[in-house]
């Protein structure tokens, strides 16, 4: 792959030195710091009254919200897309606008080196960013609560970070796709924002409304209530934000055994307790694969579209 690593190196340097990226990095870091700090405070308060040593306290650092501040996981849920969009929205149309693409492509490299290099650099940047923030917060939390994580907890944290990387990468892929579809950087940025707002904030309302209209609940028929709930869940799962939430909730909380409605008959005889990591993963495997698939689809569409595009601006 001649040229791939040249493009990769340049894009990495660009990402890490761009003001846009540094601002978002600082934003997530600050949000994470305050979320973890307040989470640690409430955990310490709870610890003095009860023994929590066997209930995955370390993971709670990332998932507990103090009421005023959302948890770190929730912050990543709605700021992560912003990072992804910011990294990708002018990836290709910016090159056209500056007149650099034809110059770069007149060098002995394959055309796909450009788009592959940009994707790889983006994903690497996201990984470095989330991994460093995650580990930094873990270290801070450790100091604050003083209870060391178990191996299982560390593994769960790493799996969570991987999920977050895939989630942010999805938004970056979408932004790159828009940067190929639209010639104006402003248009692709706005299109990305529209998707972000729709999938993050409106999808639950739309799912509820759609379920109410299409599968109305009949008080006489208990089955309709269940159908309604499943339908609503199905619609919400179109959104990558929902997939992220469900995956995260299960991976970071071993006590979550199932997503969606649970029958009373199913609860009878259930042994309360935590699931091992592989069982937790099994619960959210479809969601996780769904996220990866969405990312891959965006990449594939970008790739095909880019390869067929005329080079002249």
């Amino acid at each position: 792959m001649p040229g791939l690593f040249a493009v990769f190196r340049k894009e990495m340097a660009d990402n890490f030195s761009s003001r846009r990226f540094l601002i978002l990095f600082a934003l997530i870091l600050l949000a994470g710091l305050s979320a973890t700090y307040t989470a640690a405070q409430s955990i310490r308060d709870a610890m003095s009254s009860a023994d929590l040593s066997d209930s995955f306290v370390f993971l709670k650092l990332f998932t507990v919200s103090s009421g005023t501040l959302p948890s770190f996981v929730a912050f990543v849920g709605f700021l992560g897309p912003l990072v992804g969009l910011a990294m990708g929205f002018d990836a290709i149309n910016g090159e056209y606008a500056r007149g650099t693409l034809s110059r770069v492509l007149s060098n002995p490299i394959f055309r796909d080196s450009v788009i592959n290099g940009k994707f790889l650099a983006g994903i690497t940047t996201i990984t470095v960013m989330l991994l460093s923030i995650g580990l930094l917060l873990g270290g801070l939390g450790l100091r604050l609560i003083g209870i060391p994580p178990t191996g299982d907890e560390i593994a769960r944290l790493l799996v969570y970070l991987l999920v977050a990387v895939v989630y942010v990468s999805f938004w970056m892929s979408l932004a790159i796709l828009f940067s190929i579809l639209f010639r104006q950087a402003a248009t692709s940025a706005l299109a990305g924002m529209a998707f972000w707002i729709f999938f993050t904030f409106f999808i639950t309302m739309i799912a509820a409304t759609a379920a109410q209209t299409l599968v109305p609940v009949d008080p006489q028929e208990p089955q309709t209530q269940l159908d309604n709930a499943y339908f609503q869940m199905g619609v919400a799962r179109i959104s990558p934000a929902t997939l992220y939430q469900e995956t995260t909730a299960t991976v970071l909380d071993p006590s979550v055994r199932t997503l969606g409605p649970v029958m009373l008959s199913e609860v009878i005889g259930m042994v309360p307790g935590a699931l091992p990591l592989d069982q937790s993963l099994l619960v959210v495997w479809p969601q996780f694969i769904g996220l990866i698939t969405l990312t891959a689809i965006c990449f594939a569409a970008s790739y095909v579209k880019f390869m067929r595009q005329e080079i002249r601006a």
Partner: protein
Amino acid sequence: MDERSQIAIETVDLTKRYGDLTAVDRLNLRVMEGEIFGLLGPNGAGKTTTILMLLGLTEPTAGKARVFGHDSTREPLKVKQMVGYLPDNVGFYEDMTARENLLYTADLNGIPGKEANRHIDELLLRVGLADVADREVGKFSKGMKQRLGIADVLVKRPRIVFLDEPTLGIDPDGVKQMLELITQMSRADRITVLLSSHLLHQVQQICHRVGIFVKGKMVAEGPIEKLGAQIMGGDPVVVEVEASPVDDALLDALRKLKGVTGVDRVNGTLVLRCSKDVRPDIARRIVGSGAALSHMRIRGHVLEEIYLRYFREG
């Protein structure tokens, strides 16, 4: 251009259609190694499309394009290794310095860092940008960017360069510098140059041969003097003379001059069609006949005639 020199660029019935529009229509072009060939034509004549097809960046609808024997469509990497391309409105990464931009190009060409650094220093010196090498390109003027473009093209040590409108939008001083750089490149490094332009006056000074390109078709090709000859009916030079008194004896004498093929009298001005510039002889003859010579000039540059003939109607 001795006979042993290789064919650098060759196209055979090269055609590109965009829907109903034929951008390039069965182009047959041959440029020899070491030549400076000017692709002249009005905007939208298909010059850029031709260059992109030669580079393998656009696929031809029909026909072949070859660069030193390599098919541009089939072996684009081989072609792009030998060819430097300066696009019209060349763009650089504005938040990177001139040197960083060139280093990126070197990296794309797989040139190792140490060698690239030395070569880039040389090139920046050559295009007169050594003192601003570490300044961000965003602050460069158009002329400076264009010169940086020349350096960028030379980073890969090409055998051929394609320059698309290299003198467009820069001031006369910048144009002069650009043309000098191009000539130097052709002489010192024996690089074949294919340049496209619609600014005849600027490129005619440096091109060995030109092709006139109108609506995707090559309508005339050859050295500029010869093109002039085709257009003006075999007389490349027309001399206007005002003298008094003019009598038949003088007219006869002028007609008999070697190199003069015709003399007409138009509103008191003598119009001499000549096969070459024989103004000194004409002056001598007029003065020798006792008449007073009050004005003499070569009328209408050959290129203007070419321009009027092809570009306006195109």
